[in-house]
C-alpha cells in the first residue's frame, strides 16, 4: 500500500486470528497488531489525534514545547510527531522503565526528565503537573484527561475492528490511560448489542504502589467505569507467561502488556466455552517485544524473568 508520508500510514493495522490459542471454532481469539504503527505502538493514534487537536485549537504553534508524563510509548509517539512538525518535546518518565524507551525517546529528539521509581506513573504525573505550572508556555497534552486520546480510538481503532470482525463479542485491552477501552468501548457499545468490554490492568511489584498515602492514588480523568463490563488485575507472572505463549504458539513477538491483555482474553474464552456460547474475542497487541529485550522477559525461566521485572513498569 502506498502513502504520502509515514504519518499517513497510521492505523489500519492487521487483525489476525490465533488458530492455536483459540479453544474452538466457536470461540475464537483475534489479535489487533498495533505494533504495526509508525513508531511501533498503539500510542501513535492518541498522540497524532492530541497534537492535531492542539494545533486546530491554536494551542500549538511552531517552536512550542510539548510536555507529557509518560512511561514510554506515548512519549515516543509524541516525540516522533513533534520532530516532524517542529516542536520541542519534554517527557517526564519514571526511572523504572526499560532502557530502550529512553534510547528511542532520545533518538526522536525528546528531552527526558526522570521521575522517582517509587510511585511509578503517578509520580510522573505529579512531576509533570508541577513543571506545567512553572512553565505556563509549555503545552501539556495530558493523555490521561485529553478527550482526543479516547476519540482517536472511537474514530479509528473501533471502526477498524468492527469492519474486520462484525461478529465481535468481546473487546479486551490493557488499562493505562483508559483511552483505548473508553474509545473502542463506546464505539462498539453503540453498535454491537451485548458486547463485553474487558480491561486488563497490570499488577506491578510493590515498589510501584509505594505511595505516601492511599488518598494520593490516581484515576485518569478519562475513565468512565460504565463503559466497562469488567476489569481484571493481571500479575507480572501471568503477563509474562502469556507473552511467551503468544510467541511460541502463534509466532507473535509482543510486549509484556500484550500478555496481560491475552491473559484476560483467555479467561473470557474459557468462560464462553463453559457457558456453551460462541465468542469472537479481539484484544490489543499494544506493541512489539523489541523494547523489552533488555528486561530479560524472554530469557531463562519464568521465575527468573519475573524477578528481573520486579519493580519495573512494563506496560
Amino acid at each position: 500500500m502506498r502513502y504520502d508520508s509515514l504519518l499517513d500510514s497510521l492505523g489500519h493495522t492487521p487483525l489476525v486470528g490465533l488458530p492455536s490459542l483459540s479453544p474452538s471454532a466457536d470461540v475464537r481469539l483475534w489479535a489487533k497488531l498495533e505494533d504495526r504503527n509508525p513508531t511501533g505502538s498503539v500510542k501513535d493514534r492518541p498522540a497524532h489525534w492530541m497534537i492535531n487537536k492542539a494545533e486546530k485549537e491554536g494551542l500549538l504553534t511552531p517552536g512550542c514545547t510539548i510536555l507529557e508524563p509518560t512511561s514510554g510509548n506515548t512519549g515516543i509517539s509524541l516525540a516522533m510527531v513533534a520532530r516532524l512538525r517542529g516542536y520541542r518535546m519534554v517527557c517526564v518518565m519514571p526511572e523504572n522503565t526499560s532502557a530502550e524507551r529512553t534510547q528511542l525517546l532520545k533518538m526522536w529528539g525528546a528531552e527526558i526528565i526522570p521521575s522517582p521509581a517509587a510511585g511509578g506513573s503517578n509520580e510522573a504525573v505529579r512531576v509533570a503537573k508541577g513543571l506545567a505550572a512553572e512553565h505556563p508556555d509549555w503545552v501539556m497534552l495530558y493523555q490521561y484527561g485529553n478527550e482526543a486520546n479516547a476519540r482517536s480510538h472511537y474514530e479509528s481503532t473501533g471502526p477498524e475492528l468492527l469492519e474486520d470482525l462484525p461478529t465481535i463479542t468481546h473487546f479486551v485491552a490493557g488499562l493505562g490511560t483508559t483511552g483505548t477501552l473508553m474509545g473502542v468501548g463506546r464505539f462498539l457499545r453503540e453498535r454491537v448489542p451485548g458486547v463485553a468490554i474487558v480491561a486488563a490492568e497490570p499488577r506491578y511489584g510493590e515498589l510501584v504502589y509505594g505511595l505516601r498515602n492511599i488518598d494520593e492514588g490516581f484515576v485518569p480523568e478519562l475513565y468512565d467505569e460504565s463503559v466497562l463490563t469488567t476489569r481484571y488485575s493481571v500479575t507480572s507472572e501471568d503477563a509474562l507467561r502469556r507473552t511467551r505463549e503468544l510467541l511460541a504458539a502463534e509466532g507473535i513477538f509482543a510486549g509484556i502488556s500484550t500478555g496481560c491483555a491475552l491473559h484476560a482474553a483467555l479467561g473470557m474464552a474459557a468462560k464462553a466455552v463453559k457457558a456453551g456460547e460462541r465468542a469472537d474475542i479481539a484484544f490489543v497487541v499494544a506493541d512489539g517485544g523489541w523494547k523489552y529485550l533488555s528486561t530479560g522477559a524472554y530469557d531463562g525461566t519464568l521465575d527468573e524473568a519475573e524477578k528481573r521485572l520486579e519493580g519495573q513498569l512494563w506496560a
Partner: protein
Amino acid sequence: MAIEVRIPTILRNYTDGAKAVEGGGATLDELFTDLEGRHPGLRDRLVDDKGLRRFVNVYLNDEDVRFLGGLETKVSDGDTVTVLPAVAGG
C-alpha cells in the same frame, strides 16, 4: 480455610507489617468488618460512607469488585482478595 486478604505496603501499618491477613464473612463488607476487629483502623482506609474509597481498588480472585457487586460482593473460603492503590499507566 479462610479468605486471604493481600494488603498493600502503605496499609501494612494496620497489619503489623503482614503482607496478607485472613478473615471471614459472606460478603466483602462482612469480611472488612471482621478484619477491623483484629486490625483496627484498616476498614476506614478502604471504605467511606459512599462505599469503596476512590483510590482503593479491591479484586476478588483478580476481578475488580466494583464490577461484581461492590461491598456486597459474595466471598467464600478459599477466595483471595487483593487490595491495591489506584495507579496510572501509559
